[in-house]
């Protein structure tokens, strides 16, 4: 082997190594002999073992059916002596070993002999399946992008500033108002930007170098003065001097979106404004309301928790109930109720009623801080949240003491008027009956006397009867006068010591007491509010009755106790909330059946015959009238043969 040959061999070897490292297969074909050689790399591409023989039939066989015709045609063309012998084709093969389809790219050249016969056909081959797949996916994604761009009605542009090329899609022309006009330059497009918005675009372009991206929204003005909003997204390729070399991206028409946005913005702004206004109004009205509630003087307006604890307090509440805000917040509202009402759980009952029906109303006596009472008219209203749960109560209280007093005064007047009417009737009755009775007797006895005028003893007897009737007449007239005197309307009560009243009465009754051997025992009696002379009359009548209606030596006991104010309501005529004394006058006399207990206080009602117990029938009616005049009450318990017990209730004088 010559030195040259050696060097050629060496070079060939290097070339082979270089080719192998690039995964490039090589092949040689001798058309005249039909000889075919494939390099190992070439065999690898075809999936052919190294020791397997190859010839043209093997070559034909592996060409993918669809591409066969094309390949054969290309080979024929290369081997055409008229041509230049170049061969460059891309096609598919079916690999021998795993029968997969691969894309290959052979490149070769045909050498001709002197007779212009193709003598040698050599070349390289490379497996481009991966590249093909990449290319395919690229093509697909490009297609997808194009479809997306078209569907979204996006315009695309590509401005290669360095090269001075500007491309934009037909959609860009539409967006800029050029329709399908041709030969529209970049300057033409720029001229359509709204003059006021140009700086926005310039600024965006300038900043895009740092950001690497371009984004701006501007208006464009069409030739018919229509204004459209556009949005541009793009990429920037900067040059070494931070200049924009190339700019490409998309353009979209956002006019509709903008107008919707604008409308939405307008709506939101309007809503926000009206919300703010109503919020403000609400706040104002809340303020006004709380200010109002706070300042109201005539009503106590409170907020109660669900359990009835006081949460707030206004001036009216302070005025009516006397507590300062600081000492009442957090307390239970039962504090305003009388002990009796508290015991009967009236506050709780009212809350329950408000819970069940939404509202509870009540009128009654309530206590102030200073223990005085007032007549309160209250309304408790349940407060609900959005889910209709009770979250508390409002309680509005009015002090109607004056009205109540006026009402009571009116009732009192009514009662007085009724009583006076009744008395008038009784007076008529007296005139027709009781006062007539002695008169009738006088007339009758006079007649009998006349008949017996000559019979002196008989005449004298009837004269005496006439005198006695006349005496009774005058007694009755005096009693009626006493009774009528009690009806004087102006009543001024002053403190009266009942002990001294009793002493005076005992003095007046000294004679009957000693005659009947009466024993009067009394406890210490209170000082009451009264009219001295009337109270004297009251005890005089009661004691003289006790002495009179007894069949043995009278034993009389007088006792007293202070009446618990809650018992006031048990007795007709007592003033609520006032302090009363109960005085009991008890005898062991003849008594009477309890069923006559109310009758005995009526004028001229007598339970006993005139003969056994003489009297006018006015004494106890007088007692009743006196007690009524004192805003008091009198009643009696009695049992025949055991005695009677008179209960008198009088106002206690404050020390």
């Amino acid at each position, binding site marked *: 082997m010559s030195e040259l040959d050696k060097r050629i061999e060496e070079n060939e070897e290097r070339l082979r190594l270089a080719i192998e490292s690039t995964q490039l297969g090589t092949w040689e074909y001798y058309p005249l002999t039909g000889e075919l050689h494939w390099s190992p790399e070439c065999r690898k591409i075809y999936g052919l073992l190294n020791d397997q023989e190859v010839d043209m039939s093997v070559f034909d066989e592996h060409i993918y059916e669809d591409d066969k015709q094309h390949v054969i045609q290309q080979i024929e063309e290369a081997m055409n002596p008229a041509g230049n012998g170049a061969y460059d084709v891309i096609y598919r093969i079916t690999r021998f070993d795993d029968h997969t389809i691969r894309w290959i790219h052979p490149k070769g050249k045909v050498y001709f002999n002197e007779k212009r016969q193709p003598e040698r056909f050599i070349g390289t081959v490379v497996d481009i399946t991966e590249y093909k797949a990449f290319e395919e996916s690229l093509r697909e994604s490009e297609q997808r992008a194009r479809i997306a761009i078209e569907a979204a009605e996006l315009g695309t542009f590509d401005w290669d500033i360095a090269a001075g090329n500007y491309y934009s899609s037909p959609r860009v022309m539409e967006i800029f108002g050029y329709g399908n006009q041709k030969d529209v330059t970049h300057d033409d497009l720029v001229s359509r930007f709204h003059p006021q918005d140009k700086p926005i675009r310039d600024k965006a372009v300038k900043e895009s170098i740092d950001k690497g991206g371009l984004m701006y929204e501007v208006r464009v003005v069409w030739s018919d003065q229509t204004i459209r909003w556009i949005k541009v997204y793009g990429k920037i390729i900067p040059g070494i001097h931070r200049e924009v070399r190339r700019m490409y991206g998309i353009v979209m028409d956002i006019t509709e979106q903008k107008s919707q946005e604008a409308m939405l913005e307008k709506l939101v702004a309007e809503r926000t404004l009206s919300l703010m206004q109503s919020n403000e109004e609400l706040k104002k009205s809340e303020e006004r309301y709380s200010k109002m509630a706070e300042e109201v003087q005539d009503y106590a307006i409170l907020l109660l928790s669900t359990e009835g604890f006081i949460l707030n307090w206004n001036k009216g509440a302070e005025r009516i109930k006397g507590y300062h805000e600081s000492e009442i917040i957090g307390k239970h509202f039962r504090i305003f109720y009388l002990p009796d009402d508290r015991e009967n759980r009236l506050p709780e009952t009212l809350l329950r009623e408000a819970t069940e029906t939404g509202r509870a109303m009540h009128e009654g006596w309530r206590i102030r801080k200073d223990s005085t009472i007032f007549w309160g008219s209250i309304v408790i209203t349940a407060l609900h949240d959005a889910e209709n749960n009770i979250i508390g109560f409002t309680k509005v209280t009015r002090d109607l003491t004056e009205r109540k007093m006026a009402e009571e005064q009116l009732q009192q007047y009514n009662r007085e008027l009724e009583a006076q009417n009744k008395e008038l009737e009784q007076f008529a009755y007296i005139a*027709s*009956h009781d006062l*007539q*009775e002695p*008169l*009738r*007797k006088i*007339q*009758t006895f006079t*007649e*009998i006397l006349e*008949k017996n005028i000559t019979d002196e003893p008989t005449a004298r007897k009837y004269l005496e*009867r006439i005198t006695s*009737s006349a005496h009774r007449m005058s007694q009755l007239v005096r009693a009626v006068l006493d009774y009528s005197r009690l009806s004087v309307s102006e009543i001024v009560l002053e403190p009266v010591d009942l002990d001294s009243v009793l002493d005076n009465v005992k003095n007046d009754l000294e004679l009957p007491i000693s005659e009947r051997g009466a024993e009067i025992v009394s406890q210490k009696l209170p000082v009451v509010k009264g009219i001295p002379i009337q109270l004297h009359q009251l005890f005089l009548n009661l004691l003289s009755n006790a002495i009179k209606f007894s069949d043995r030596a009278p034993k009389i006991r007088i006792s007293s106790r202070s009446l618990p104010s809650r018992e006031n309501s048990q007795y007709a005529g007592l003033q609520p909330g006032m302090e009363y004394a109960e005085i009991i006058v008890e005898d062991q006399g003849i008594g009477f059946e309890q069923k*006559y207990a109310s009758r005995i206080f009526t004028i001229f009602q*007598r*339970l*006993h*015959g*005139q*003969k056994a117990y003489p009297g006018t029938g006015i004494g106890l009616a007088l007692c009743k009238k006196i007690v009524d005049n004192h805003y008091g009450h009198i009643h009696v318990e009695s049992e025949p043969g055991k005695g009677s017990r008179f209960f008198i209730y009088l106002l206690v004088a404050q020390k």
Partner: protein
Amino acid sequence: MVCFFIDDDADDQEIFGMAISEVFPKVRCLFANDGIEAMERLSDPTFFPSCIFIDLNMPRMNGKECLVEIGKIERLRKVPVFIYSTSWDHTLMEECKELGAADFIVKPAGLQALTDRLEQIIQENHLYE
């Protein structure tokens, strides 16, 4: 003839006795001081008065109550009961008649007036000795 007179007033008992004797000299007049006493007397089945006179205004049991009680006694159903009172109240008179009173006598002033009234009553009710 037996006459039963119920009145708490002793004077009236005497006056009535005198008057009825004028009309019926042989009359036997029995007295009670009030309704309770009268009812006790009438509970005796052998006591059978020809006529009964009741005062209205009496303690314990008054005239009207007494009238009702007498009405309950079967034995006395045909015995006329007269109300004898100072009252001349028409509604009261009507009330008493409804409760079973045969007539209503207003206590007159004077003995002769009473005698005359009693004679009239007796004729009207055919009460003869």
